[in-house]
C-alpha cells in the first residue's frame, strides 16, 4: 500500500542521500586530517570537486566502447537505488519491495561488474589490474555480507531490509550475541567494499597499489564526477545500512511526519560518529598486503557464520 507521505518520504530519502553522501566523504576526510595532525580540507571539498568535474570536458581513451561511457551512469543508478531501499530515516519505503537484502547485494554486485568491465574496456594495464583486484575483493566480500544478512533475516523471518529494521527497532532491548558477530563482520566488509584502509587506500597516488582508483584512472569530466559521487553514495549506503541494522533506534516507523523530522538530526549524529570511527580506523592502520585481503575477508565470513550458528543454537527460541 503506497501512501502519499510514503512517496514523499521516499523522494526525500533519495534527495537526502544525494546531498549528504559527499558531505559524509568530506567529514571523513576532515577527521582523517585532524587525526594525522594536518590542517583539514574544507568540509564541502567533495562538492567543489564534483562541481569542477561536471564543468570539465570528457576525454575518452581511444577504443573506449559504449560500455565505458555507460558504466558511470549504471554505477550511479545502482547506488541511488541502494540508497533508496536502505531505510535511513523511515522504514516506510515504497521502493523497498523492489529489492530485498539479497537483491541489495546484487545491486552492489551489478555496479561492481560494470565498473570492472569498463576498467578493462579501454585495455590499459592499470584498468585490468584494478578490475581483477576488485573482483578478488568482491567475491570474498559478498558471501560474508550475505551471511550477515542471513543472520539478521533469521531473527525477523524476512529478507526485506525495511522489515528487518522495523522489527529490530521496535523490540524490547535484548542483547543478541549473534548481532555482535554480524556487526563486526559487516564492519570488515564495509571497509573492503568502500576501498578504505586497510584493504585499499583512497588517497594514494601509487598506481601499482591501487584497487578502486586503478579502475577509474581513465575517467574524466562528468563520468568521473558520477563515479566519485557514486563512491560517496556507496559509503553513505553502507553507513546507513550498518546504522539501520545495528543501531536502528530513531528510525521513523511509518507515515509519521514528526518522527521523520526527528529522525534527521539523529541520522546526522549517527553518521558523524560513524565517519569519525572510520577515520580513526584508517589512521591507526596501515594498508595490508593485497594477499592478506582474503584472510581479512575470510575472517569476516567466519565471524558472520559464527553469528549465524549462535543465532541457530542459542537464540532459536526467540
Amino acid at each position, binding site marked *: 500500500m503506497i501512501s502519499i507521505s510514503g512517496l514523499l518520504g521516499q523522494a526525500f530519502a533519495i534527495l537526502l542521500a544525494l546531498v549528504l553522501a559527499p558531505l559524509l566523504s568530506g567529514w571523513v576526510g576532515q577527521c582523517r586530517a585532524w587525526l594525522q595532525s*594536518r590542517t583539514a580540507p574544507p568540509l564541502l571539498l567533495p562538492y567543489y570537486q564534483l562541481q569542477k568535474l561536471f564543468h570539465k570536458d570528457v576525454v575518452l581513451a581511444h577504443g573506449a566502447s559504449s560500455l565505458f561511457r555507460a558504466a558511470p551512469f549504471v554505477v550511479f543508478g545502482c547506488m541511488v537505488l541502494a540508497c533508496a531501499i536502505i531505510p535511513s530515516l523511515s522504514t516506510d519505503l515504497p521502493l523497498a519491495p523492489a529489492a530485498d537484502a539479497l537483491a541489495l547485494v546484487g545491486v552492489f554486485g551489478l555496479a561492481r561488474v560494470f565498473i570492472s568491465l569498463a576498467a578493462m574496456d579501454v585495455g590499459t594495464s592499470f584498468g585490468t589490474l584494478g578490475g581483477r583486484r576488485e573482483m578478488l575483493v568482491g567475491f570474498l566480500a559478498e558471501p560474508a555480507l550475505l551471511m550477515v544478512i542471513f543472520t539478521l533475516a533469521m531473527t525477523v523471518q524476512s529478507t526485506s531490509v525495511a522489515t528487518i529494521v522495523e522489527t529490530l527497532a521496535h523490540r524490547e532491548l535484548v542483547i543478541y550475541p549473534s548481532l555482535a558477530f554480524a556487526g563486526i563482520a559487516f564492519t570488515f566488509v564495509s571497509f573492503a567494499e568502500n576501498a578504505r*584502509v586497510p584493504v585499499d587506500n583512497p588517497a594514494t597516488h601509487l*598506481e*601499482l597499489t591501487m584497487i578502486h582508483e586503478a579502475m577509474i584512472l581513465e575517467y574524466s569530466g562528468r563520468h568521473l564526477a558520477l563515479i566519485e559521487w557514486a563512491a560517496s553514495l556507496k559509503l553513505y549506503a553502507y553507513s546507513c545500512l550498518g546504522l539501520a541494522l545495528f543501531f536502528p533506534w530513531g528510525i521513523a516507523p511509518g507515515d509519521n511526519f514528526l518522527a521523520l523530522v526527528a529522525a534527521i538530526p539523529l541520522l546526522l549524529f549517527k553518521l558523524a560518529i560513524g565517519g569519525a570511527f572510520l577515520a580513526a580506523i584508517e589512521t591507526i592502520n*596501515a594498508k595490508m*598486503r593485497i594477499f592478506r585481503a582474503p584472510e581479512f575477508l575470510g575472517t569476516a565470513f567466519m565471524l558472520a557464520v559464527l553469528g549465524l550458528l549462535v543465532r541457530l543454537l542459542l537464540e532459536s527460541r526467540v
Partner: protein
Amino acid sequence: MFLCDDSSIEFTPQAGIGAPVWRGHVPSGEELKTFAAAVHLAGGRLAAIWGSDERQRGGGPSAGLRAGFRLHCVFGLESGHAWVSLDLPADEPVYPDLSGIFPAANRMQRATRDMVGIATSGGDQRPWLRHGAWPADWYPLRHDAVHEAGMGVGFQNFPSNYDFVQVGGEGAHEIPVGPIHAGIIEPGHFRFSVVGERVLRLEQRLGYQHKGVEKLLIGADIGRGARLVGRVSGDSTCAYAWAYATAVEAACRTEVPPRALLLRTLMLERERVANHLGDLGALGNDAAFAFGLTQFMRLKEDWLRLNQQLFGHRFMMDRIVPGGVATDIEAPALSAIVEQCAAIGATVKQLRTLYDEHPGLQDRFATTGAIDAALARELSLTGMAARATGILLDGRAHRQGYTPPPPYAALGVRPVTDERGDVAARVAVRFGEIFESLRLLREIAVGMASGETCAEVTPVAGAGGLGVIEAWRGEVLVGVQFDADGRLARVHPHDPSWQIWPALEHAVMKDIVPDFPLINKSFNLSYSGVDL
C-alpha cells in the same frame, strides 16, 4: 700498491686530504680486464666508468697511440679507490666489455658510448641515455660536437623502440609503468613482466631527465662547475658539491681550512638527516600510514627551516665551494643546532617505537624487497642499500685498512648495518643513521674549530682529481680534468644510484606488483643523478 703487485700498472696516490685515491694507467683493454678481474677477486667493486675526448689535448702517456679518447674506470677497494685510465685510438675507440665481471658496468658503458662514442667490443649494445633526441653517430661530449650541431638544437627527435627483454609463458604479461606517473615524481619507465600479481622480471629504462649537464661543464670555470655539479641531484647537493670541491682541491693542491671542513661535515650530515626524515615519512605513507608522513614531514620542515636560517638555503645549495665554504655561522647558530638535534632526536625516538611496534607496518616492511649481501657485492652497491644487507661499508667510518678523510677520522663514525636486506632493514638503517648523524652534529657543533672558511683556488692547467663523498644514498664520485687554459675539460659526476637501480630490479623479483612502490621508496634512488 695493495692489490696488484704482479701487475704492470703503476699507481700514484692522489694529493690532498680527501678519501684515498690511487691513479694509474693501463696500456691495453686486456690489461684493464685483467685488473678488473683482480679487483673482483679481492672483493672490490666498480665505482664509476666514464669517457673523455682527448683528441685536442694530444696523446696520453701510453706510447704508440695517436691522440684519441680516454676511458676512466674507478674501482672501490678496501683501502680506497683505484682510478684507472685507458687510452683509446681516435679511429677505433673500443674496449672489452666489463659487465661480465661487474654487472654494474652495463649501464655506465652504454652511457659512455652514447655520450662520448667509445664502445665495448661485445655485450649489451642498446642505447642508454640516447632516446633518439640526437642521431646515433653524434656524440654530445666530443669537442667537435659543439659547432656542428650546437647542443642538439636542430635535431629531429627520433624516438626509437627500446628492446625490452620479453618474458613468455602461460599467463605471463607485461605492465608498463611510466615515465609519467600518477604522482608528482621523477620520470622513469618500469616494465614489469608478471603472472597475476607476481613479478617475474622488472626492467628499467631511465634517461628521461637527460639535461646535458656534462656537456655544460665542458669549458666552464671552477665556480660555474660547482654550481652545475651541485644541481645534478638536488637531494644530494652538499655531497656533490663537496665531492667536486675535493676533486678540484686535489688537482689544484689547495689546502682547505679546518673550520671549512667541519662546516662541510655539518652540512652533509644535515642533508643526510633531512633525506632520511623525508623518506621514513614517505615509507609510512606508501603503506597507507599517513600519520607517519605528516609527523616526519613536520620534523623535516623544521629541519629545513633551520637550514634556511643558518645557511641561507633550505637545501644548502652552493654553500660548499672549492676551497672551503661560502657561508660562515656564528656561535648562537651552533647552539641552535644542538638544541634542534635534541628536540628532533627525542621525537624520532618516539616515532621509531611507533613504527617498530605497528603490526600493519611491520608486516608490510618485513621480508619485502630483500637482497642479500652476496648480491649487493656482486652489484657493487654502496651506501645505505649495501649497509642494509650487512656490508660494513661507509666512507665516513674506519674499517680494516681504511682511514676516513678528515674530519671523519677524528669523529669516529659508527656505521649502522642490518643484515636482513629487506625494506625493514633499510628503515632500521635510516633510523640508526639519523641518530648517529645527530650525535655527529652535536659533536661538531661543540668542537667547532675557528679560523678561515675559504682558501684561494688557482686552477692548474692539465691537472685532474677525483672526489669521493659518502652521501646519504651512497658513494658520490666526481672526476675533474682541467684543460690547458685552466678551464674544466671534463667533469663526471657519478651518483650511487647507477649501481643501486639494478639492485631494485632484483629486489622486486620475489615480490608482488603492489609492493613495488614501497620497495622503490625504501631505496629512493635518483633519476636526475643518473640521467645527467
